[in-house]
C-alpha cells in the first residue's frame, strides 16, 4: 500500500465522518445503498464511522456524478478511460464519471449485453480508500490497484488494504483480524478491453 505525500489523514477527533450526495444527482436508495456498503467495508476494519446526511455543503465527504469538465481541473472522458477520482484528506471530494455504464445491483453476467459495464461498488470502495488517505497499490489483487477490468467485481479488502488503512487509523477492536476473503475474480471479456 502507499500513502499520499505527507501522509494526510482525517484528524483523530473526527472518527465519525459524514457523507452526502450532490443534490443535482437524483439517486435512488439502491444506489445510495451501494455507497453505504462500500463505506462499511472500511468501517469494518477501522474505528471510522460513516453516516449519510442530507447537507451537501456541510458534509465531510461529498459524492457526485459528473460528465466532462466539472470544475476541478480533472475532466472526465466519457465511457471508460478514467472512471472516477477522489481527493486526499481532508478534502472529501469523490467524483464519478456519469457517462459510465454503472452496474448497481444484480449479477454482472446479466449485463454482458451492456458494453463496458463497470461495477459501482468496486469503484466506490477504491475511491473511498483515497478519501481516507491511501494511494495506489502495486498489489494487483488489492482494492487500491489503479485499474479495473470491465465486468469485474472487486469489493473485498485485501490484507494490503487493511494494513494501509489501519496504519492511518488503527484497527477496529471488533475486527477479528482474520484475512478478508480473497478478491472476487469473476471477469468477462468486453470488446477490446477484455
Amino acid at each position, binding site marked *: 500500500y*502507499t*500513502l*499520499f*505525500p505527507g*501522509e494526510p489523514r482525517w484528524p483523530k477527533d473526527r472518527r465519525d465522518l459524514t457523507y452526502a450526495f450532490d443534490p443535482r444527482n437524483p439517486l435512488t436508495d439502491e444506489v445510495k445503498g451501494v455507497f453505504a456498503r462500500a463505506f462499511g467495508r472500511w468501517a469494518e476494519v477501522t474505528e471510522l464511522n460513516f453516516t449519510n446526511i442530507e447537507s451537501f455543503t456541510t458534509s465531510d465527504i461529498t459524492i457526485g456524478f459528473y460528465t466532462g469538465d466539472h470544475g476541478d481541473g*480533472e475532466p*472526465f*472522458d*466519457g*465511457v*471508460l*478511460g*478514467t*472512471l*472516477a*477520482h*477522489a481527493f486526499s484528506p481532508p478534502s472529501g471530494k469523490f467524483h464519478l464519471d456519469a*457517462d459510465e*455504464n454503472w452496474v448497481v445491483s444484480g449479477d454482472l453476467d446479466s449485463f454482458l449485453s451492456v*458494453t*463496458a459495464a*463497470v461495477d459501482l461498488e468496486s*469503484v466506490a470502495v*477504491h*475511491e473511498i480508500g*483515497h478519501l481516507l488517505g491511501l*494511494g*495506489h*497499490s*502495486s498489489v*494487483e489483487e488489492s482494492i487500491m490497484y*489503479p*485499474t*479495473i*477490468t*470491465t465486468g469485474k467485481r472487486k469489493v473485498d479488502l485485501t490484507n494490503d488494504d487493511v*494494513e494501509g488503512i489501519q*496504519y492511518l487509523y488503527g484497527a477496529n477492536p471488533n475486527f477479528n483480524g482474520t484475512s478478508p476473503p480473497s478478491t472476487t475474480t469473476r471477469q468477462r471479456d468486453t*470488446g*477490446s*478491453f477484455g
Partner: protein
Amino acid sequence: PNSTAIPPSLRNTTRVFWNAFSNFTGCHHGQNVDGLFRIKKYFQRFGYIPQTYTGNFTDDFDDILKAAVELYQKNFGLNVTGELDALTIKHIVIPRCGNPDVVNGTSVMHNGPRLHTVKH
C-alpha cells in the same frame, strides 16, 4: 455524423481516443509518429511525466517518453522495455482510477522503496 447510428460505447470521442492508442503498438525511441503527443499527455495525467513539464509535447518518441514508459512498465510489473509493446498498450487502455500513480516525481506504486511501508 448521425450519433444515433453509433453504438453508445463509441459515441464519446475520448473512448475512441484511448482505443486509438493501439495504433502506437511497437513504437520505440527515436521514432516520430503522428499523434504520439497524446500518449505523453496520458502519462503526464497519471504522473509519469512531471506536471512541472510545461513544454508542448511533440510526436517524437524522445527521452521523456522513454523514461515515462519505463516507469509505467516498472510500476505495473511489465517487462521494462522502454517501448510501447503490445502488453504495455493493452494495459494502458484498461479503465482506471483518475488519481495519479506518481506524485511529485515519486512513484507510489513501485515495489521497491515506497513512500511508507510497515512490516508486520
